[in-house]
């Protein structure tokens, strides 16, 4: 091989190597970002599911309280719903009237179902319950403190920490000093 040919090939090889290195670096950065977002999604999904569960429970509690105190609550709720529907009817728009009534009802139901919430982070099950309805034998934490701990974990995931499986995430949450545990006293009432 001539000296010029040799140098050309060497230079070409070097350029290719430089190009490969830069492209590989870009890909690596992109993969790292995707991986970090996946870790972040784990915490967000857990928070979202617990929130959905809490809302569902609040709605159920609203219905339950309505059923338990049929006479007293029915009149109040019925009046609120009827008034909203009548207000809607004034506008002569059926859908708008229904929406107005449903909004008032939903607000009333949510108000009825709200409580101090607690979350059980078990290895076999996850549960959300009002603090006056927690079960014995499980470890319960307050809803607000869990939200703070989840926020901390989100920040760690954003900064590139590996969270692993659900059990690992629960284990990490339990290590947080922000968590407040709820203990069911022998009287049946919960204390923090």
């Amino acid at each position, binding site marked *: 091989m001539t000296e010029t040919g040799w140098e050309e090939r060497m230079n070409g090889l070097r350029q290719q190597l430089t190009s490969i290195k830069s492209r*590989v670096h870009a890909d690596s950065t992109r993969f790292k970002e995707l991986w970090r977002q996946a870790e972040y999604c784990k915490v967000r999904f857990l928070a979202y599911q617990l929130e959905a569960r809490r809302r569902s429970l609040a709605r159920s509690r609203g219905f339950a309280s309505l059923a338990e105190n049929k006479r007293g609550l029915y009149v109040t709720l019925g009046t609120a719903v009827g008034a909203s529907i009548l207000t809607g009817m004034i506008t002569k728009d059926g*859908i708008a009237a229904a929406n107005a*009534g449903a909004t008032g009802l939903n607000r009333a139901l949510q108000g009825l179902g709200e409580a101090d919430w607690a979350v059980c982070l*078990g290895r076999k099950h996850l549960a959300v319950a009002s603090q006056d309805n927690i079960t014995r034998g499980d470890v319960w934490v307050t809803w607000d403190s869990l939200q703070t701990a989840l926020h901390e974990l989100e920040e760690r995931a954003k900064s590139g920490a590996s969270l692993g499986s659900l059990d690992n995430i629960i284990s990490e949450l339990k290590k947080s000093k922000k968590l407040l545990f709820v203990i069911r006293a022998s009287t049946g009432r919960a204390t923090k």
Partner: protein
Amino acid sequence: MDPISHEKKLEVARLYLLGDTHAEIEEKVGISHGSISNIIKELLVGKLTIPGVASDQVNDLHQLSVDLTKKGLEPSQALLGITMFERFSELGIVPFQLDQWSQLVKLYAPEDITAKDFFEAALNLRKLEEAEGKPFQEFKQEYTGMQQKVVEKKSEVDSLDVKKKSLTGEVESLKSEVSALENKREEVKSLFEAESAGLEQAKAMVTAAKEEHARLEGEIGDLLKQKDKLSSEVGSKEESLIKLEEIGLSEEDLLHLRNLVEGMAEKDNISADQIKDEFFSALGQFGTFSGLKKAAQEEAEALQDMAKKKASLVGEVVELENRRTVLQGEVGKSASAAAEQIREAGEEAVSAIRQEADAIREEMKSILEDTLVAGLAVGETGAMQKRGEEAGKELQELVVEVKRRLEERK
């Protein structure tokens, strides 16, 4: 008849609002049909009021309760229906669109998966899009792009492997070339050594020639001396013969002379040599008188010739000596110069080959290091990709596990 208490009237009014008939109210409260009618009239005209309920809404609320009762609905069921209606409204679905929605679901729901799985997948997809802030198409494009890049990277790595093999082959070829040059250098070296041996041989030959020349010179000297001696002897004998011939003595006379000498020696009882010496002495004395001058002249001429011949021979010897010295010098110079040239050329060639080999080695080393770095970077990217895939898998598992644990508790 006792007047009806205000609490009882309110009870009758609430039951009326709840849609109960007169008979049912009568049965529940225990007052007469007429009293119930009166209480309801008071309620309708505004004489009797229920806290929180306007009098003009009483009829509507009663009608609502009657309608619910006719349809066999509990108030909680009616509220559930209203909640569903609210949800539909939030989603922008009006009642007449429900049939279309149902047909749409049937149309787009795949046959091989259940509706539950389909909706869960759609929900997961929507959550992922919300969490990432990107549409699914973008995810798909990114995934496709990454797959293509992975394929490209693989092909590049393969190409680099091929180039590495090619370079390795070229390095081997260069090694063999270097080896061939080393062999050639060894050949040159052996040739140089052979030339050196030849030179030594030539020097030995020159020394032998010098010795031979010296020996020949000695022999020439001896021969010259012998020649001088023989010349003098021959000259004296010839002179004697000439003198004998001049004086008229033949060989027969000489034989007689010999016999005479021998007879005289026998007679005088002395040796023949002694008689001869006395005879020639006498003859010499005779010659001295007659041709001494001529003989002396001839002798001088002969001596001059001999001197000339000797001078010529000495000159030739000196010339030969000079020539030998010159030749010896020339041979030495040419051999030395040739050896020096050969040695310098060999050293230059070896140095140039070494420099080139060193430069190639450095180039190769640099490129191999770069290749190694690039390979490591590719490996790290692969590891990062694997890590991302594992995180995605963990995320899927987490979704399933969170749902399972929440469902289990229900």
